[in-house]
Structures are given as C-alpha cells and as structure tokens.
C-alpha cells in the first residue's frame, strides 16, 4: 500500500521464437502472396483488400484505444498501454498493403470504369465523389493523418519513459481529444471507400460504425492476447492481475455486443424497408453458398464469444481470454471476408490457398512489427504518472 515505492522495472525480452514465428509467417505469407498474384490476379486483389482492412483495423484501432485511455483518464490499462502502442505501429505498414490496391483499382472497383459510369445514371451522380483522383487523394490523406497522430502520440509517450514529465500526459490528452473525432471520420470514410464502394450502387449509413466496431474488437483482441500471454510468463511488470484481465474481458465483451447491435441494426432496417436498391447486398450474401458464411458469421462473431465471455470467472481465466482473443481475430477476418469477397464471386464461396495466404501475411506482419518494437522499447510506460495507480487497480 505504500505510495512512494517507485516501480522497479527491469525489461525482460520476449522469448526468441516469438519473433521467429512472426518472421516465418511473414516470409511464408509473402511467398504465397506473390505466387497468388501470378496465379489469379483479380482474386488476389480482393484478398489484398482483406489484408489492408485487417492491418488498418489493428493499427488504427490500437491507436484509438491508446487515445481512449488518455482521454478517458483510465488507469487500469496504463501498465500495458505500451503493448497497444506497439500494435499501433502497424499503421506504418498500411501503405505497403495499399500499394497493390492502387495498381488493381480497375479489378476491384466497378466505378473506376469510365464506360460503365457513362452508361449508369446512379454512378454518374456519384462520380463527383467516386472518381480515381479524389479516391487516391482521400486515401493518401487518411494514411497521412494516421501517421501524423501515431508519431505525435507515441513520441510523447516514449519521451515520458525517461523524463516522467506529467505535462506529456496532458499534451497527449489534448492530442487524443483532437484525434478521436478525426479517427471517427477517417475510419468511416476509409471503410466507405475501400469496402462499401465495391458495390457502388449500395449504401448503408451505418456502415462506418459497423466497420469501426469490428476494428476495435480486433485491436483489443490482439492487445488482450499479448498482455495475458506476456503476463502469464512474467514478462511484463509485477502487479497486473485478475482485475486487469477482467477489465480486458469486459471491454471485449462490450464490443462483441456492440458489433452485434450494429450488425443487426443494419440488417433490420434494410430488411424492414425492403427497398431493392439496398436489399440486393444482403441477397448477394444469401445466395450461391454465401448463406453458410452469413450464418457462420453470426455464430462465430457473436454467439460463441458472447457465451464464452459472459460469466465473471471466464473473464478472469487467462486461458479462456487467450483463446477468445484468437477466436475474435479469426471472426474479424471472416467478417472482412464476408464484406469483401461476395463482390468477387457471387455464385460460389471462394475458399482456397489464396484466401489463406493473405491472413497468414497479415498475422505475420503484425507479429513482426510487434516484436521489432518490443525489442527496442520498454514493455511498460515506466515514466507514466498513472502507472502506480494502474498497478494498484482493483475492481
């Protein structure tokens, strides 16, 4: 209970095979992806979009979680905020995943074909927004904004390790207050541009929120997994206990419900209004075998994690938490697959090694970025004034 016992922290490195697994996945994924591009160009481009959305989810979602901690004044998550910051570094590889998209715009997006737009009144009406130049400008702008806030927020947090200056926290709170509305807008428009515009005739006003809910869930799942994994091995700091696990579990549980709420709202309004220009999007996902993926999505993304994390003891059980985190990441990939792939193949569910290659690359990239950051920096924000309170946190 003593308040003046300054936190003793000695950095313990991650086990060596952790980085190796990441590099291996990255290498295997990269080889398969290059091969996939030679085998089936269009199909690979669609899968590349899943990869891009997944990396965006993890990177930008993690930065959002960091900003939420600052803005909300939360202390419970301070001891492992650095983990989330490492995952936010995935933002840096988003452009790499976006470049192949740029070269395959015509394969992916129907509205980039000038002759199709000329024949189509609706697309012509949307062409002031959906045109290639503006699209590229927007994407560059989004990525630039994410880069900017990543560097600003992380720099202050890192500087605090040595100086311990509480002013840096204040500065980050202000930055977070600016970042969060910008995050809301950029993630909404990014999801509209990258995913919703695959079907340029379709529109759903809740789509940005839908993607946001999955984003936060995936980012949180990665953080939860690594925090529980490292803490069980004693690689973090003394003081992270069941109370922290419970909070992470409850956070996950809340966003599982939020996702289901938003997904159902989107479905119900379109189902109820029954307008052909909206319903075709769901009909696409109900025909040609997609029905099974749609039903599986409900079960995988909502029912299983809901009952898996419902009770209080399950949120404190490290094994359960780690399993559920991996499960939720898997569910997020299925979610992206369900959003993107029906545009590529309406009549059948494409499931082959190409669909496996891109998630392998995605996971490999995230783990590699994480292990590079983890090697260089402290795993705990040791200079943060909230750290002591965070370690003393109790339910």
């Amino acid at each position, binding site marked *: *209970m003593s308040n003046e016992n300054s936190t003793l922290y000695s950095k313990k490195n991650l086990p060596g095979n952790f980085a190796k697994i990441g590099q291996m996945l990255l290498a295997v994924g990269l080889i398969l992806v290059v091969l996939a591009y030679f085998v089936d160009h269009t199909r690979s481009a669609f899968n590349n979009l899943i990869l891009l959305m997944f990396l965006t989810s993890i990177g930008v979602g993690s930065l959002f979680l960091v900003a939420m901690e600052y803005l909300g004044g939360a202390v419970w998550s301070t001891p492992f905020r650095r983990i989330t910051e490492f995952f936010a570094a995935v933002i840096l590889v988003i452009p790499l995943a976006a470049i192949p998209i740029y070269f395959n715009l015509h394969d992916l997006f129907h509205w980039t074909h000038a002759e199709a737009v000329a024949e189509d009144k609706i697309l012509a009406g949307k062409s002031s927004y959906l045109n290639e130049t503006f699209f590229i400008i927007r994407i560059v702008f989004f990525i630039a904004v994410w880069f900017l806030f990543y560097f600003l927020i992380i720099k202050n947090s890192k500087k605090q390790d040595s100086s311990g200056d509480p002013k840096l926290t204040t500065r980050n709170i202000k930055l977070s207050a600016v970042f969060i509305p910008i995050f809301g807008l950029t993630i909404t428009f990014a999801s509209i541009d990258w995913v919703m515009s695959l079907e340029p005739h379709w529109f759903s006003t809740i789509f940005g929120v839908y993607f946001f809910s999955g984003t936060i869930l995936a980012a949180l799942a990665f953080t939860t997994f690594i925090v529980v994994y490292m803490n069980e091995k004693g690689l973090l700091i003394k003081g992270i206990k069941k109370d922290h696990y419970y909070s992470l579990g409850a956070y996950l549980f809340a966003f599982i419900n939020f996702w289901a709420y938003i997904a*159902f709202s989107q*479905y*119900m309004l379109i*189902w*109820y209004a*029954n307008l052909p220009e909206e319903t075709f999007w769901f009909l696409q996902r109900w025909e040609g075998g997609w029905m099974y993926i749609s039903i599986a999505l409900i079960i995988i993304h909502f029912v299983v994690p809901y009952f898996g994390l419902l*009770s*209080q*003891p399950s949120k404190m059980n490290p094994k359960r938490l780690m399993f559920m985190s991996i499960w939720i990441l898997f569910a997020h990939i299925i979610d992206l697959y369900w959003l993107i792939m029906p545009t590529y193949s309406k009549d059948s569910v494409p499931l082959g090694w190409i669909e496996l290659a891109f998630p392998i690359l995605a996971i490999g990239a995230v783990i590699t970025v994480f292990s590079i950051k983890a090697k260089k920096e402290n795993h705990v924000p040791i200079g943060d004034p909230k750290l002591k309170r965070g370690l003393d*946190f*109790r*339910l």
Partner: protein
Amino acid sequence: MTDKKLYSLTAVFDKPDDIINAAEKVSDSGYTKYDINTPYPVHGLDGAMKLPPSKLGYSALVLGLSGTFAAVLMIYFMSVYDYPIVIGGKPFFALPAFVPIMFEITVLAASIGTVLTMLFFFFKFPNNSHPLLETDYMKLVSVDKYGVSIQADDPKFNEDEISKLYNDLGASKILPVYWDLEEVLYEHKIVEPKFLGMLALTAIIVSGTVYFSLNKLMFMEPFSWMMEQEKLSPQQKSEFFSDGYSMRPPVEGAIARGDLPYQFADKPEMAAKILSNPLVSSEENLLLGKTKYNIYCSPCHGYFGEGDSRLRGQFPNPPSLHSQKLRDWTDGRIYHVIEVGQNVMPAYNTQMTNNEKWATILYIRALQRSLNAKESDL
C-alpha cells in the same frame, strides 16, 4: 448501561487504503459477522473482505430470459394469434422486427427485476430499520469516513480484543452501537389502527390523484372556442333533416368541375360515331400519352402495343393493338374501351382524366403507324 444491548462495535477510519487494510485484517482474524460502510464504492473491498462473487447476476439472467420469453409470447399473441395484420408484406411472425422489442423487454425485466431482488431479497426491504441507522457512526461513514462494524453475535466477539485490533489498525474513533430498545421490545400487532389508517389514506390519495389526472386533467382544453361550436361531427345524426343524414348528397344533376359524365356507356357504336379526339398530336400531347400508356396500358399490352408484356400467359392474353380491326376503329371507339373496359380489361375512367385518355389514344395511333406506315410517311 445494563438496559442497553450491544449490537456491534464499530471503528471509523480516515483513508480508503486504511479500510481495505482493516477489512483484510478483520477477515483474517476469523470474524464472520461484520460489515464495511463507506460513503462510495471503494474498489478492492470485495477482495479484501473475501466475499464470494455476488449471486445477483443469476437473478438478472433468469429475469432477463423470462423477459425475452414473455416478449415473444406477447408479440406472438398480438400479431399472429389475436390480430394478424400484414405489415409491409412481411410474414405475421417476422422475427427481425420483434428482436428490438425482445431486447427492450429483456433489459427492462432484467434491470427492474434485479433492483427488486436486491431490495427485497438481499436488503430485506419491508424491514426499514437497522440498528446502524441514525447513529453517529452512520453519520460519519455516509459523509467522508470509512467504517467497519463487527456484530455482537459473532462467535469470536470480544469487546477488548476488537478494541485492541481497531487501535492497532489505526482507527480514528471506536464507537459501540446499541439496539434501539424501544424498537426491539415493541410488540408488533397484526392489526394496527395507525397503520391501517395510513394505508387507507395512501390508497385514497393515490387513486384520487390517478382518477383526477387521467379522467379530468387529461381532457381539460386550454381553449375550447373552436372545439365547441354549433356543428355536426361526421357520422352524427342530424335532427334537422328528415332522413337523419348530417352530410348532404349533392343536388341531383350536379357535375364535378372538369368532369363530364360519359353518356355512351352501353352504346359503343354511338361513341365511335360521335366522339372525336379534341387534342392535336403535338409533342407535348404525345409525351403525355406515352407516359400514361406506359403506366396503365403497357403492363398488359406491352410497351409497343403488341400484347407481349411480362404478364403474358398469366391472364387471357390481351390483343395486339396493331390488328386491322383496331386500326380501323375510330378514336371514339378506343375511347369507349378505355372508359368502360372490355372483357377482362377494367375501366380506366377513374384513373385517367379525359385529356390523358385522348393523349393516350394519340400515342396508340403513333404506335400503330410505326408498324404500318403509309407511303406518305416516308
């Protein structure tokens, strides 16, 4: 002091950390009947007191599920069994539409039910007195102090030992709390005139207020000048007219503006002879005709009058408008068919104005000419 019965020995602490420490020590010392009182929920107390996880969650689960079940039953009874109405072409049992109601009633049942369970089951609600109430101890711990109270019926209870424990823990005050003997010794009677009177008074006040506000207050109009004028409402009986109708039919022979009654309803030949198209085939009229033709005629006759519409085969096939018979018909004869219908074709007199009918005929003529052009058209 002999007439006082000890309820518990309490101690007051100044800091939240102290009370967590105290809770740990008290539970470690083996006391079972004790309680902690703080002005706000202090994090970590449950663990320090070694309390098992609360059972309240189970009651929330059960009540929530029964709410879901009740909602399904309610909606099923209302929209499938008792009063089925087709809404927006959906089936009577349209699950997605019911989910919001199921969700809301689940939340409502779970939250209200949990609060009631907490009050009645855990707090023993109708019992509104507790020895700790109205004591100096309670006054302190409900403002800015943190207190622990070990009850006298604890098997390990020993006043000196507990005082020593409290002092060791750094208590700022140690206060004994006594039963309110007047209350303990009071003999409760089942029928108490005071209580019954109170009950009756409450009933009268509540029901009176409800009656007044629902039946009187709700129907008070701030201004009634226009509401209460001399007039007859729809469906009201008239005392003035002998037939009792308050709404009067129009005078016999009256015609609505812009409407001419059709005089040749059963005389197609006369219509063919007498009626002629008042419109000239201007672009404007032809466009109007095209619009109306595509709306009213094309579903059966097809966009080009060939009788090849999407409804072909589902009804007796409509004839082509390009037959010699139709081309020989006068405009008046076609007008007659549009006006009164023919075979399975319904009358369109209520759906199109006179001008629209004539414009449509112009358009039909143009269609006919497109397939059987005269030499002079070339």
